[in-house]
């Protein structure tokens, strides 16, 4: 059982604050670190893996500081985001080298075991430079697993994987989580995270935005006020009909755009209401587009929630 504690951690680069006063605990099982690109996920993972000192606060693994403490690597397996991995080696040579660097008594056997776990034996004698993205990811996994670590840190592991490889990796991570290992992976895709992690930590713009069960996070995300831009044959009549219903909080007639701006508070009810109201009033809908469906706006709602 291994627990990573991030306590009041900030990290800035010059004038830029990448991580802002984050406190969270990552325990056994799978944790998803969710956030848009540039939110500070990689910075957090770098601090958890001892490759970046926090500017303030502390990052510890079972009470031991991670920064400048090489002993923690006996417990940590790191799967970095970057691709480079000694392209001139074969997959097997690469994993064996990692086993040797860990000082394992039988590097060959450990490497064979790790390669079997990620099902890469069929390509283990090919140079890693010839691998596809998914194969590289799996061999990187094998190198991180070779010393049987209690903690597995993965930075955007699903990036660039095809659906089949994605499923395979998810299955693998589920198994590690079930074994009681502490598995943390980062992603900017909600669907990816909720398929895999029961526990989700959300970071947005360097801040810890939400933490908890994926259902709660999902609910937070769908229950937020949604904004729509609506164009119709009679904007004012539609506006009057919409504001009468409890699912909308505000309707604005945007004369310049020639459209309605609608703020819905009950997402599901509003999506049923709009077509019905329009049909009853004989109004034709030309455009219904969400005005703030970008991931960033979803996340920034979470920050204020």
């Amino acid at each position, binding site marked *: 059982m291994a627990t990573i504690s991030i306590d009041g951690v900030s990290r800035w680069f010059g004038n830029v604050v990448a991580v802002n006063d984050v406190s969270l605990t990552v325990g056994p099982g799978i944790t998803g670190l969710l956030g848009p690109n540039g939110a500070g996920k990689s910075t957090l993972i770098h601090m958890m893996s001892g490759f970046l000192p926090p500017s303030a606060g502390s990052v510890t693994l079972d009470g031991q500081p991670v920064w400048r403490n090489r002993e923690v690597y006996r417990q940590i397996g790191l799967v970095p985001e970057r691709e480079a991995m000694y392209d001139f080696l074969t997959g097997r040579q690469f994993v064996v*080298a990692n086993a040797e660097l860990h000082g394992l008594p039988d590097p060959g056997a450990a490497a064979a075991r790790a390669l079997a776990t990620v099902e890469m034996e069929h390509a283990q004698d090919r140079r890693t430079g010839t691998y596809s993205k998914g194969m590289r990811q799996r061999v990187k996994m094998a190198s991180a697993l070779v010393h049987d670590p209690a903690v597995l840190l993965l930075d955007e592991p699903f990036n660039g994987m095809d659906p089949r490889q994605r499923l395979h990796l998810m299955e693998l991570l589920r198994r590690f989580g079930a074994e009681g290992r502490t598995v943390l992976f980062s992603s900017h895709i909600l669907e990816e995270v909720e398929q895999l992690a029961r526990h989700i930590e959300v970071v947005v713009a360097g801040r810890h935005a939400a933490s908890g069960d994926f259902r709660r996070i999902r609910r937070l995300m769908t229950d937020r006020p949604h904004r729509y831009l609506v164009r119709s044959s009679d904007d004012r009549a539609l506006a009057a009909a919409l504001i009468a219903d409890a699912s909308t909080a505000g309707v604005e007639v945007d004369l310049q755009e020639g459209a309605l701006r609608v703020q819905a508070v009950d997402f599901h009810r509003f999506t049923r209401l709009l077509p019905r109201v329009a049909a009853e009033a004989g109004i034709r809908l030309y455009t219904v587009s969400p005005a703030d469906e970008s991931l960033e706006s979803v996340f920034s709602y979470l920050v204020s929630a």
Partner: protein
Amino acid sequence: MNPTVARLTVHGLLGRRRGLLLLVVPALLLLLAVLVRATKGQDHDIAVQLLGGLALGTLVPLLGLISGTGAISSEIDDGSIVYLLAKPEPRWRITVTKLAVAVGCTAVFAALPTLLAGLVLYGTADGLAVAYALGALAAGTAYSALFLLLGTLTRHAVVAGLMYCLVWESLVGNFVHGARTLSVQQWGLALARAAADPGAVTADVPLSAAVPLLVLVTLAATAAAAVRLAGLTLAGEE
């Protein structure tokens, strides 16, 4: 020394096309030595010029630069150094291993060709060939350590190293006499003078200054590189 780190470093240094590149420069030196010997015969002045200027003055710093920075900077650049550092292995040991590989590389591709060129040019007379090879080995070691440190400090290690060689050692050293005291090349030359028969080689720096400075620079650069590696941070890719 860590054999795995050594293996990966040698592979990275000599693999790809760099291995060939490392052979080209010493091959040119040897070719030139053969040509000079064939046309001019055994000539002390020409031998000293070639061994001092071309071998010690150009080949050795160039090889030190290629192997010193090459032993570490490409791994830092592409991020694969993570696989070496995310291990319980002490980072000074990783540094020392990489330095040993760089020094070995300089010995094989710079000191050894210097010896061969010296033998071709001047035979074993005056102990000239062995003396210059010794100077090349010592200077090559210091250069390797210096440029290994540079490789951990900046992404532009090769350019910075070239600037040092061209501006400081060649330009400033040629015009400002005092600057030669702080020139790795001159320290190597001082060693060569001491090893050769008296009067065969001239050098500006006394041996009593050259040897401590060579040792100091090598040790300090290695220690600094180890410290630098121990606190290596990964910048986010975002």
